[in-house]
């Protein structure tokens, strides 16, 4: 499709602004004005042209409201429409973040109560709503842990232990927090090997970072043993809460020996993912760690007034302002809509849906870690199909032809040709059956007409794209045309 720049013609405009209603400053005090006679290279088009352009672009996206999005570890559930409206109520969306606290009493109460809900759901006492996404939540968690060790005169503790199945953000966050990663092996059941953990902990252990259920969709059954090993070595336990959709009202991280965890509101709590963001990654933690939480925290004073405050021992600040507040509004709405029973239902059906798909696909795809029930997701291997010359990437692309988004592929790294499938609770039995049919049909194609799979996708707005060329002939901005008025 043409770019917005190609629609541009000098003199067109997509807004109408009022005339300047004050006298112009007599002297223009700017000594260094914009170069090129003030050109900024922005397009010039009418409102209608612009709407048509972006609406046409939008039609090339797959999205949750169109079809199933079984992207493992991403929890692509339905996003309630009312919540979009609520977050846009003027009193909530049109308020400056630095107004005196008493003028933002509504937002502050909502934030305070959301924090309490998240503590109840995870079994913790302290909460920060500030992190903008899961990865920033991880950073927040590790900063709490570092502050804790420092307060005890143990700032040398800089090793973060994590299983080989960890999300990529876990090691990347460890580096950002000036720590080093120590890998812990998984056993033949796809669970952390306690013996290896015992070997790896030591006087430099800062924390053990674990996703539970893990990235294979399996609950770490020996969790108590794992967290105890770390505590006995003087380390703390961090839970990556990316998979919290499996545990709502079912189990609490705070009771399993974890000291801190983050939540992805854009996964578990149904706030939309927006094509890559904004997310929100609140952190909940033990009372012991709460004093280090980032600035600000929301407190409720004795006189019933909500205030923002900075803890004396706070490790600092992660964003210029309080949080991705607009996202918090939607997560609050979700929890208020569902209540305790509704949240439990979310996780129950998420588990049933995932186990149902796993059972229905068992005959057609390998499942290297099928030792019992999975939680909210499971990981298949495309090894059988790979032997027929059809890779997992091909299966993923063929699913697009069938009108589905692909599962997460090639992750976790400990499964060959991995296909990580997470249906979420918002898919109906009928839709799950249709997905099973598509997967079986692709498995059959792989055997009988593999070219149909390796040539896929063919029913999409573009065919398979050349990623190597994208790197080799790097083009990341629209070049200005020769002679074009920038």
């Amino acid at each position, binding site marked *: 499709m043409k770019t917005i720049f190609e629609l541009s013609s000098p003199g067109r405009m997509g807004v109408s602004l009022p005339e300047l209603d004050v006298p112009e400053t007599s002297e223009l005090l700017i000594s*260094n004005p*914009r170069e090129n006679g003030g050109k900024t290279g922005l397009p010039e088009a009418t409102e209608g042209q612009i709407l048509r352009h972006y609406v046409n672009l939008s039609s090339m996206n797959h999205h949750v409201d169109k079809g199933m999005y079984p992207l493992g570890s991403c929890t692509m559930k339905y996003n309630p429409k009312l919540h979009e409206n609520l977050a846009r109520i003027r*009193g909530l969306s049109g308020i*400056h973040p630095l107004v005196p606290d008493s003028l933002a009493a509504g937002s502050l109460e909502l934030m305070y109560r959301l924090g309490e809900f998240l503590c109840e759901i995870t079994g913790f006492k302290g909460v920060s709503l500030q992190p903008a996404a899961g990865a920033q939540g991880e950073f927040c968690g590790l900063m709490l842990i570092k502050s804790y060790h420092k307060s005890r005169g143990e700032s040398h503790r800089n090793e973060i232990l994590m299983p080989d199945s960890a999300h990529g953000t876990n090691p990347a966050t460890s*580096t950002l927090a000036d720590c080093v990663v120590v890998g812990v092996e998984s056993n033949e059941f796809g669970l952390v090997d306690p013996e290896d953990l015992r070997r790896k902990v030591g006087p430099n252990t800062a924390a053990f970072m674990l996703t539970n259920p893990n990235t294979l969709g399996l609950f770490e059954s020996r969790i108590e043993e794992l967290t105890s090993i770390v505590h006995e070595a003087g380390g703390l336990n961090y839970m990556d809460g990316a998979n919290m959709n499996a545990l709502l009202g079912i189990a609490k991280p705070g009771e399993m020996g974890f000291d801190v965890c983050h939540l992805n509101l854009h996964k578990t709590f149904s706030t939309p993912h*927006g094509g*890559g963001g904004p997310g929100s990654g609140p952190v909940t933690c033990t009372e012991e760690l709460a004093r280090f939480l980032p600035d600000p925290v929301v407190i409720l004073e004795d006189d019933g007034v909500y205030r923002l405050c900075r803890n004396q021992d706070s490790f600092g600040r992660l964003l210029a302002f309080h949080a991705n507040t607009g996202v918090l509004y939607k997560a609050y709405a979700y929890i208020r809509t569902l209540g305790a029973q509704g*949240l439990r239902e979310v996780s129950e059906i998420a588990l049933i849906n995932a186990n149902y798909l796993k059972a*229905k696909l068992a005959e057609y795809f390998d499942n290297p870690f099928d030792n019992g029930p999975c939680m909210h997701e499971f990981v298949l291997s495309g090894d059988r199909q790979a032997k027929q010359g059809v890779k997992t990437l091909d299966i993923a692309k063929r699913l697009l032809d069938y009108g589905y988004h692909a599962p997460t592929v090639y992750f976790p790294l400990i499964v060959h040709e991995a296909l990580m499938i997470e249906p979420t609770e918002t898919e109906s039995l009928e839709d799950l059956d249709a997905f099973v049919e598509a997967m079986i049909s692709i498995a059959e194609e792989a055997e009988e007409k593999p070219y149909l799979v390796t040539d896929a996708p063919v029913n999409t707005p573009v065919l398979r794209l050349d990623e190597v060329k994208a790197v080799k002939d790097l083009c*990341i901005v629209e070049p200005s045309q020769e002679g074009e008025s920038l």
Partner: protein
Amino acid sequence: MSRFVPNGPEQREKMLHAIGAAKFEDLLEPVPEKFRLKEKLQLPEPLSEIELTREFEEFARRNKGAELACFMGAGAYDHFIPAAIDHILLRSEFYTAYTPYQAEVSQGTLQAIFEYQTMIARLTGMDMANASMYDGASAAAEACLMAMRATRKQRILIAGSLNPRWLDVIRTYLSRDDFEIYEIPFLEDGSLDLATASKLIEGGTAAVLVQYPNYFGLIEDLQSVADQIHEHKGLFIVAADPVALPLLRSPGDAGADIVVGEGQSMGISMSYGGPYIGFMAARTKLARKMPGRIIGRTTDRAGQTGYVLTLQTREQHIRRDKATSNICSNQALMALANVVYLSLMGSRGFREVSSQCYHKSHYLEKKLLEIPGVSRVFGNTPFFREFVISFPISSIELRDRMIEHGFLAGLPIVELGDGAMLVTVTEKRTRDEIDRYVSTAAGICKGGRA
């Protein structure tokens, strides 16, 4: 059954049967009995859509600050947001999609972000931009880390006239014993102390970071800083306000190597602090050091143009602990808001917004200076959209009294004096509002009733 979960008792039974489980609890077998919750979560009873809406309206009603005429800025601004933007943001196709991992069914998001990258690069006068960061402050922190990676030096100099909240974020991201952060003081006129900067630069500085216009709204001379840091083989990071850029020399033209900034001003509501968006632009030679996602143009098997996530080997899902950043989710939908905003405004409209902010803020400053006892804090240094003014009474008291008259008068900055206030005027403020602001403030300063 909630309205979000389609599988009820009938489907449950069928599915459990297919799984080979007698009851749901069988699926919890891997969860040790002692960790299975016996009690319901302690949460309030569920609300219907009508009840929930009422509760939200009540929250909104208690946010009295949203009803005031906003003359507050300091990093978040009350600019006009064209209605068309929300019509695009509310398209399910955009907001209910995930990160565009499967490019063939994500061309809408990918091309829109490619256009966003282009507009950011052009505005800042740089070669390229990434797909977004969380906000301006975290983008600034990541820019410092990027400069340290690129130069293999560990000292960062930061203008003392940088937004203090941003400095706080940078200090948090860079809180390591082996990193040095120095603040460059500002002079009486609010501009950077170049003599001190020059001394601090010597001996291995990765980058100097300057805000443009600075926290006090003052327009810095970028070129001289650029020359200094480049002489010592360091990088120049500019934290730029995009709304000022149609009027001011672009950071790229003035020698910046990395430009970051807050994009909230471009079509995003203030929403009590977020979600906003950080932008990051850079010279091409730094592309491979950049954090975050980058969209690139390529072709498909039939030779058609298309877009993909590119240079992914920088990122956490591939490079893990060696990645350029841990960022995964960014602020993609906010980038869409920016690109639609900038398209609607176009080069003329955006320049008009910029120009009106400029003239209206100068008009207010001039009028305020007519009040006895009101004075400038930084002399006649050129400013854009916001300025620090000193009132003859406590700025905190003035702010509180102005609230009673319907004005959010600005941000008191007591570090600059008891009466000092950072005041902002966007294109949304009318002459009438500005005139009433002045008469009200005059009345309060005089000790009488406005």
